[in-house]
């Protein structure tokens, strides 16, 4: 067991973890932050995407011990201070960017990283950036549309089929 301390969604958290404890296990099983999902557990689907020191990582493919001292942000920390949905989350709702919602936490975290790196991405850039986030329901069109809308761009011309 090693003691790790990290800031999760702005709150300092300390826990004893085993070497093989994954970051996602710490988040979900120990801290009950179950908004971070496990789809594949093999670093393919991106449902487990969280931010560590401001960067997207797959929390199923990182050990909790590696996040010692880090700032971690999960989907639970994304809403506005008053509890309302933030711009990206609201855009997913407005543009029907989710169906079952299983991939959505990872999509929102990935979209947040994208818009930080590239505030006005093209449709193609959004699609390429989401390469590691798999959605089995929507066919991606409305996810792309939601992210474009959240970046303040006009999405009326983007096909919705």
């Amino acid at each position, binding site marked *: 067991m090693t003691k790790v301390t990290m800031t999760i969604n702005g709150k300092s958290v300390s826990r004893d973890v*085993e*070497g093989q404890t994954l970051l996602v296990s710490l988040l979900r099983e120990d801290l009950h932050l179950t908004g971070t999902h496990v789809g594949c557990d093999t*670093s393919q689907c991106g449902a487990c995407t969280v931010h560590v020191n401001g960067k997207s990582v*797959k929390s199923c*493919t990182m050990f909790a*011990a590696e996040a010692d001292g880090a700032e971690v942000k999960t989907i639970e920390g994304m809403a506005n201070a008053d509890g309302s949905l933030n711009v990206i989350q609201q855009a997913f709702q407005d543009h029907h960017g989710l169906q079952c919602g299983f991939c959505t936490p990872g999509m929102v975290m990935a979209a947040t990283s*994208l818009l930080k790196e590239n505030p006005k991405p093209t449709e193609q850039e959004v699609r390429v950036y989401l*390469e*590691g986030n798999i959605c089995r329901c929507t066919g991606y069109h409305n996810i792309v549309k939601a992210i474009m809308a959240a970046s303040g761009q006009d999405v009326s011309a983007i096909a919705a089929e």
Partner: protein
Amino acid sequence: MYAFDIETPTTIADAVAALKADEAQPLGGGQTLIPTLKARLAAPSKLISLARVADMQGVSVAGDTLRIGGATTHATVASDAAQSYPGLAALAGHIGDPAVRNRGTIGGSIANNDPAACYPAAALASGATIVTDTREIAADDFFVGMFETALAEGEIVTAVSFPIPQAANYQKFVQPASRFSLVGVFVAKYADGVRVAVTGASEGGVFRWTEAEQALSSDFSADALKDLSVSADGMISDLHGTGDYRAHLVKVMTGRAVKAAG
């Protein structure tokens, strides 16, 4: 996963010392090792994380050489080598997806020597030098075979030094499910000749296509390849493509890389 401990040394000397422990193994970005551990294909007693070793981080240029610390992530190479060695930065920027690039490291990729990995092609085509805690190894001697390198037990890749070419390009024919290369070709043009390295295709892992190197060294154009052919002997044949298909792709991808390198 079987149980193990994790240590996070901050110097190369401490990392090497920690790796002397029985069944200790280095941990780079974990993007290959963690899936391996989950499948119980490895049972280390201890993982020695290299992520906090300061001397293994970052990208620097000295004269005509680009040096990349062994624990530098693909994302950092993609952004910080874009000026000095754009062909290499572009390769790094197309490994996996953004989250994989934020964790995966050049040292881990080179040490793992997956037969479809991207960095081995760049290292071999650039005539790079692999720097370890004890010695320097020429890329030509480093990649021994599929998942096999010249590294000794407990030896770590602390840096990779790339001579910066006049022109270079990497063409990756992506296997759509894994996003690894089905065939990838890195072409690099230097004052003293052209080097061509192929990944994804051969059962022996990354290799140099010497006939193409000779042809391209006297005429750096896709046309120079037209009379060459690649044998399907020893090419990987699987459900994603036959050996013949891969052999064909080697020539096509080399031509595209030459065109793109200009």
